[in-house]
């Protein structure tokens, strides 16, 4: 129904290759997240799939059919834009009904589908309002409503939550995940926020400079990152990287230790350091420790670990959960 395959897809803007060459398989019903730092080509890749940009080379197959040359509307995809791109002069009802009107459905049919979509998204009371009279979260839902009325094979989300405040973002994240369960359609979601990627995805595609660094489920990426970039990108707070003598001790060029995989003690341990900053979040405490010769190490411990700025702590890495990387930055 909604499987997508990219074969050797590339995109150049003038001389500049934004995406050198990508192969990717997206299965029906999957929630796939493209994640990466800004400028890594993730939005461009989404726009290539949507048909808003033409590929420079390669093929895009949707449901096994070559869709490379098809116009966006004929690909059976729906997109939610970062700015929502609602039509400001139309009511919520007309906004959601617009794709159906363009498909020449009759009025009663459009009304029925719009009402259904509004019921799913809790927008029934706002149908006659204009977008400017809605809050950010409601606008977001209207944008999603406009996508779901067409019952597309696949949803494309282009950083849809980046204009919302933190609390609302968590809510919408849940709503989008629930919606995905409910509708079961394939979704491709672009974000630079690894938390969104980890919490929502069935499959994460980590991109850097137009190349795929690693593809896998959230926990696969967390447990076995393929290289330094993925290791540093996935997980929060960031993984600590140590190289030099301390790394050679473990037989690697660089070792990575996640903040949550160390044992902290005030009495004894492998490395000794001074607490620079301690951030108490209630459930957790993040300690930023300056260790001589190793540098700055972030650690995570339980909420009531009793240290303050300037105190001495001992850090012992969990040898089972230590990541080793070779000189090329690849996992060893």
């Amino acid at each position: 129904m909604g499987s997508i395959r990219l074969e050797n897809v590339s995109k150049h803007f003038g001389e500049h290759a934004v995406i050198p060459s990508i192969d990717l398989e997206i299965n029906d019903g999957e929630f796939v997240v493209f994640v990466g730092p800004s400028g890594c080509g993730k939005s461009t890749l989404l726009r290539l799939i949507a048909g808003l940009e033409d590929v420079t080379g390669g093929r895009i197959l949707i449901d096994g059919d070559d869709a490379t040359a098809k116009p966006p509307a004929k690909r059976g995809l729906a997109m939610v834009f970062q700015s929502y791109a609602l039509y400001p002069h139309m009511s919520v009802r007309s906004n959601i009904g617009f794709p159906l009107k363009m498909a020449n459905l009759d009025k009663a049919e459009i009304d029925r589908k719009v009402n259904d979509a509004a019921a799913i998204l809790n927008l029934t009371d706002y149908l006659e309002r204009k977008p400017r009279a809605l809050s950010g979260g409601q606008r977001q839902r209207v944008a999603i409503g406009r996508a779901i009325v067409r019952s597309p094979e696949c949803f494309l989300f282009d950083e849809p939550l980046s204009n919302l405040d933190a609390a609302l973002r968590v809510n919408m994240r849940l709503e989008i995940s629930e919606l995905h369960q409910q509708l079961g359609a394939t979704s491709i979601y672009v974000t630079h926020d690894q938390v969104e990627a980890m919490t929502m995805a069935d499959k994460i595609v980590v991109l850097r400079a137009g190349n795929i660094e690693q593809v896998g489920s959230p926990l696969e990426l967390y447990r076995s990152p393929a290289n330094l970039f993925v290791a540093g990108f996935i997980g929060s707070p960031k993984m600590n990287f140590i190289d030099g003598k301390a790394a050679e001790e473990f037989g690697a060029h660089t070792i990575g230790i996640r903040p949550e995989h160390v044992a902290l003690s005030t009495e004894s341990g492998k490395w000794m350091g001074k607490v620079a900053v301690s951030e108490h979040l209630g459930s957790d405490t993040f300690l930023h420790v300056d260790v001589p010769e190793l540098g700055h190490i972030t650690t995570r411990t339980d909420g009531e670990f009793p240290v303050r700025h300037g105190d001495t702590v001992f850090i012992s890495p969990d040898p089972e959960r230590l990541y080793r990387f070779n000189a090329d930055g690849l996992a060893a």
Partner: protein
Amino acid sequence: MATTHTHSAARLMMAPSVILLLLWMIVPLSMTVYFSFLRYNLLMPGTESFAGFMNYRFFLTDPAFFQAIGNTLILVGGVLFATVAGGIALALLLNQPMFGQGIVRILVIAPFFVMPTVSALVWKNMLMNPVNGLFASLARFLGFQPIDFLSSIPLTSISLIVAWQWLPFATLILLTALQSLSEEQNEAAEMDGANAWNRLIYIILPHMARAITVVVLIETIFLLSVFAEILVTTNGGPGTESTNLTYLVYMQALLQFDVGGASAGGIIAVILANIVAIFLVRMIGKNLED
């Protein structure tokens, strides 16, 4: 306390400009009103006397008056239609990426810098002249009888000239409006299955509604008082076929030397302009809100 202080200080500061503006408007207006009640003919100086509403009666019963009103409205309406429709089309064209975009845009705007008398004379002598004009040669080349534009279709010809002058203005305003349309909206509409025509009707035109309103309002103000183009091309003729209100007032004052009658005509023109303005604001002014 502080706020009342600031308020009165602010009023005091604004007073000079407000008073100046008021005088600037009130003095000529009240003089015109005053003259319109006088029997005042430049050929008989020193014999001014109070005339009551005589000037208004003469002006309003002049058969040329109704034709002038009709001509004024046709001129305004015709030019508005041509410039808005043409302006939208040109703006859409100029918004496409193309080679030499900057130069083309400047060229399109150029007619606005040509003064009305000059452009009217160029049109009269070089384009519309039935013997030497470009249109006449074109007609002969195609085997048609050349049209004497300014005597057979004088009002249409003047509308054409004025429309040519105002097209750049409309294009410029509409182009800037078009450029402010977010690309994502266009793309969203494209994904929603809207073809180019539907995007124009449902997305682009509603987005430009406000700019179109501005163009209509501003142009109406200026087009109600078109004068130079008529003076240098048809002199209001043949007969009064291309006389608008402004030109009628001019004829009254400076061809018949009747200052009283002309003033009455001026006041009537002001009233009519206000009526048009009220209708316009009622009809399309709501686009400017919010």
